[in-house]
């Protein structure tokens, strides 16, 4: 009797896992460890020699007002983005669940935003928010909400630029969050919804007392995904405002890029990038534990 390689289950399993492991080690684990190491060193693009400097980079960053601004923006943008995303995603999920004509077209269009790479989407938004050519301005002008000769200059003013960054993040996160939440809503047994109808609950009561509490675990997962994606994203700020006006819209991820890649100070850039890691880890653990507690069925 002879057996082929394919009969050796252990071997086959390892062989098939190999590409994934190589990928993760090369593109995630190595840069991750290197970034942490760099953040404690004085490595720059011009002088790659590794010298241990302890917490110097973190101290220097902390004293930099732009870093503090970026840190605050990261929190602020993420919080507002997630809040808006969850509300909108719930509405979209309910719309997806409802039956109406042309439903698949709407689904397709909403999901399109999700399948578009963030940078590409941001480039489209650069045009949408252009200081002279903005179609949004044109619409506002046609509606009589804006004088014909005036412009919003979305990306040029601090408040509007921040709102724009948040708006684009929400635009790109809602589809994913809606799909996650819709899966949660579909998982509610039909009997529960029927029982609520028999018990006399109208739409709002059912939403607040049945649908939302029962989808809380998946909403938490959507929050977690959304928060991680928003905190770690540099492309939207980079493409949309590049931190303008005067670093008012800078976030940690984009500031790390400016410092480390544009400025060549790899060590300080790494320190900026790694700064939020402990916090993100703690938040992730907290949310996942809450999800487990909420999973009541």
């Amino acid at each position: 009797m002879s057996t082929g390689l394919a009969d050796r289950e252990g071997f086959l399993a390892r062989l098939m896992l190999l590409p994934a492991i190589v990928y993760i080690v090369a593109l995630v684990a190595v840069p991750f460890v290197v970034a942490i190491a760099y953040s404690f060193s004085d490595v720059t693009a011009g002088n790659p020699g590794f010298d241990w400097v302890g917490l110097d980079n973190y101290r220097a960053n902390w004293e930099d007002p732009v870093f503090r601004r970026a840190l605050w923006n990261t929190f602020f943008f993420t919080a507002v983005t997630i809040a808006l995303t969850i509300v909108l995603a719930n509405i979209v999920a309910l719309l997806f669940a409802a039956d109406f004509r042309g439903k698949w077209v709407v689904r397709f269009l909403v999901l399109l935003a999700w399948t578009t790479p963030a940078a590409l989407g941001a480039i489209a938004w650069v045009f949408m928010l252009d200081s002279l050519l903005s179609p949004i301005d044109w619409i506002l002008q046609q509606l009589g909400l804006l004088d014909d000769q005036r412009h919003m200059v979305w990306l040029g003013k601090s408040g509007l630029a921040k709102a724009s960054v948040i708006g684009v993040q929400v635009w790109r996160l809602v589809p994913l969050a809606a799909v996650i939440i819709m899966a949660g809503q579909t998982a509610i047994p039909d009997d529960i919804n029927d029982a609520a109808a028999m018990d006399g609950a109208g739409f709002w009561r059912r939403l607040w007392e049945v649908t939302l509490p029962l989808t809380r675990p998946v909403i938490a997962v959507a929050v977690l995904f959304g928060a991680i994606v928003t905190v770690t994203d540099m492309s939207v700020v980079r493409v949309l405002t590049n931190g303008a006006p005067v670093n008012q819209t800078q976030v940690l991820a984009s500031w790390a890029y400016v410092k480390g890649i544009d400025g060549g100070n790899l060590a300080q850039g790494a320190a900026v990038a790694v700064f939020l890691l402990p916090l993100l880890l703690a938040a992730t653990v907290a949310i996942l534990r809450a999800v487990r507690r909420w999973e009541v069925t």
Partner: protein
Amino acid sequence: MAVAVETVGLTKLFAGGDRPAVDHVDLATEEGEYLVLLGPSGCGKTTLLRMIAGLEQPSEGEVRIGGTLVNGLPPRVRRIAMVFQSYALYPHKTVRQNIEFPLKAQRLPSDERRQRAEWAAELLGLTGLLDRRPRQLSGGERQRVALARALVREPSVFLLDEPLSNLDAKLRALARDDLKDFHKRVGTTTIYVTHDQVEAMGMGDRIVVMLDGQVRQVGPPQAVYEHPADTFVATFLGSPPMNLIQGDDVIVGFRPEKALPAEVLGEGLDGHHRWSLEVHRIEYLSGDRHLHGLAAGLGKPTPVIVRLPATVLTPIETGTTHDFVLREDDLRYFDIDTERAHEHRAG
């Protein structure tokens, strides 16, 4: 007396279905009665119940509750309550919150809600469990919570959809008693759906036997059992089912427990029919003997089952042929073509 629920020509055709799930059903409950819808799975009984509840809109026909046409009205205005097969308790709410939910939807003030929830909980023996969540309850307790939630609004009709099928056999017998006892105390008209003939026979004031969306027979359990309207009802009810034997121009039927060995009744009795059974196999079940064999003398030789009660001690061996008698009154006749029952033996 007011009729609680009435359906007139009620029909449901699902999109893509080739025949109606419910086909022109006319039913009327009597006040306070326990009406059981019985039929094999897929016979349309649950769809019928859901149309009465308002969870499903009929394709044709009328639903009347308390004399009022309720077609198109949402469930909450129909003054009915439903207990689901899965109980459908809200998993994130405590027992108390589950029971109070229908009252909350009615916007009752909280002290009244509390009072009525406690009344319902006491009636169903749930007082000690009010702060638990459904997952901390046993199957029987969950069922009682579902009943309490249905009861608390004091509906004019209860709809129960296979409420016992999620319980194990032992618990089911207990829960059946509980349900019947509950009905005795509240006296509310109840429509009960089941595919289990034991539940139907034991609990129903009247049984509605359904097949393929149509009502085949309506009547008290004993009448349906003794005088089945057609061969389907005859074989669906009873365990073992009614024996059917092809005669010359008619189908002859008899219940397995109606036949007795000839010597038990003695010779020469009037109004009795004598026949013989070639015994192939004997099963000994709960003290009774079930004789499987080939019957001769009633029509074409046909495999039948005879059920001898434990009190009949006549020795009978496998492989022998034995004479049996049946009272003429216990024979049932069905039309060969329509399979509907004849009143008397047709010529």
